Each structure stands twice: as structure tokens, then as C-alpha cells.
């Protein structure tokens, strides 16, 4: 990935709109469209010039996994040389007009490739058998600054209930709260993330925070 001119971003923005529409359309092309969409969102924002994403597919029709790196990997290298552990397990409903669905997703910001120095992680799982904890939650690898906080399994194992985590909100958090440099100007990436996120949330499964359904 290389830094592009403003004209190139215009092309990327147009691609993002088109690919989002292809994801919404569902069908067999939606998995590839989601992979390309992910690539462009990170290209526009916090993806390192050598970062990669990949799509794994098997013989089970309509199923795929989009993850960072190459086959067997899951890390997207960021512009600050840290990493986002990125895994989205996807499937397409048989009905042709149904939006691509995520079975589970993990977005984990980590300082090292091994993941020992992870900072936060958004988890999402759709299906009831996976809802031992609320479908969407946040983990923070930290300790409270005050005494007396009881957490049976450690603070980093607390499931902070959230709404549906999105790629866009995770990227926004990285840029705005963790200072990860963006590849494009704020006037470019802000509206692009907003537009894509609104379109996604319009059709997304949005579990109520904290409710185990």
C-alpha cells in the first residue's frame, strides 16, 4: 500500500460505496466484496503500507473468514507498527437478497505480534450457543487505579457490554484515542467511515448491550 493522491482517495471512496452495496446485496460475491471493502477501509486509515488481509474459503458453500495477514495469520499491521488482530467469520444466507452475516468477529489492538501486549479487544458472536456472555463486549488489558475493585478472573477478563462493534468504530478509536496515524486526511476518512458504518448498522444484527439473548 502506498500513500495516494487526493484523486486516488476519490477512487477509493467510490470503491467503498460500491463494495458496501455488494455486501448488502448478499449472494456469492459478498464474501469477496467484504474482503476488498476491509482492505480499502484500512488503506484509507490505519493500514501499514505492507499490511495485508485475506479471505479463507473451504468447501462449505457461502462461508468464509476474513483475517489480517496471509494464510494462517490474523494480524493487520498498522501505521504505527503495532497490530490489529482482525478476524471476521462470515456466511451468506441462501436467500439472494440477504445481507452478508458475521458469525463472530474479533478486533484486538496489540503492541506486539505475539499478542502478549494487547490493549483492548472487541468481541462479537451471533449465535445463542456462543452467548455465555453478551453477544458484544469489550475487554481492556488494564488494572483499575482504585483499590477494592473485585473481579473474580482479573480485570482484563471483564466483559464490558457494548453495542455491535464495527470496523469503523474500531478504526476511529485507534486514530482518535490511541493516536494511530491515518493515511488520509480527516476530511477524507471521517465521512467515509461514517457513511460506511451507517449503511452497515442499517442492516446489522444489533444486540442490546448486556442482554444475553
Amino acid at each position, binding site marked *: 500500500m502506498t500513500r495516494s493522491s487526493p484523486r486516488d482517495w476519490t477512487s477509493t471512496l467510490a470503491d467503498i460505496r460500491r463494495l458496501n452495496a455488494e455486501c448488502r446485496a448478499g449472494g456469492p460475491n459478498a464474501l469477496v466484496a467484504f474482503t476488498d471493502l476491509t482492505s480499502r477501509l484500512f488503506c484509507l486509515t490505519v493500514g501499514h503500507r505492507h499490511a495485508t488481509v485475506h479471505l*479463507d*474459503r473451504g468447501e462449505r458453500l457461502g462461508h468464509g473468514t476474513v*483475517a489480517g495477514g496471509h494464510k494462517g495469520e490474523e494480524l493487520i499491521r498498522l501505521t504505527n507498527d503495532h497490530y490489529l488482530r482482525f*478476524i471476521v467469520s462470515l456466511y451468506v444466507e441462501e436467500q439472494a437478497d440477504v445481507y452478508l452475516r458475521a458469525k463472530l468477529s474479533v478486533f484486538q489492538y496489540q503492541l506486539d505480534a505475539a499478542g502478549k501486549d494487547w490493549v483492548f479487544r472487541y468481541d462479537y458472536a451471533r449465535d445463542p450457543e456462543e452467548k455465555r456472555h453478551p453477544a458484544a463486549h469489550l475487554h481492556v488489558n488494564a488494572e483499575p487505579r482504585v483499590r477494592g475493585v473485585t473481579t473474580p478472573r482479573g480485570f482484563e477478563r471483564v466483559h464490558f457490554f457494548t453495542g455491535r462493534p464495527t470496523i469503523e468504530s474500531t478504526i476511529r478509536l485507534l486514530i482518535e484515542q490511541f493516536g494511530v496515524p491515518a493515511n488520509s486526511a480527516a476530511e477524507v476518512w471521517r465521512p467515509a467511515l461514517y457513511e460506511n458504518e451507517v449503511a452497515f448498522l442499517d442492516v446489522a444484527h444489533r444486540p442490546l448491550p448486556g442482554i444475553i439473548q
Partner: protein
Amino acid sequence: MLAVQTYEMTRDEIVALIEAKAARLHVDPKHIVTAHRHGELEDWADYADILALAELLENDDPLFTA
């Protein structure tokens, strides 16, 4: 855009990848997947890569049922 790759894998390639990842974590892949499906896995995200690969296999794959 970031470089994008698509990997079309056979059942055996997927199973080999799952087993390699499970070996690195010193876990039994069958246990991880079945425990997850029964809601008995406390921290499923630790094994999200294994679970995501397992989704590429049919539900009655011998890896889970044997």
C-alpha cells in the same frame, strides 16, 4: 488498497491448519469447537482463529464428531 489474497482450501488443508493452531496453544481442537458450540467456552475469543476455520467445515465433519 491493502494487498488482498484469497485462499481456497480443501477440507484436509483446513483441518491441518486448525490442528497446527491448536498445537501451538496446547489445546484439543475438537474440545475447543464442541465446547464453544455447547456454550461451555469461557473465553472463546482466545480461540477465534480456530473457531473461524472450523466454520469452513461442515457441521458433521469428522473432526468434531469422531
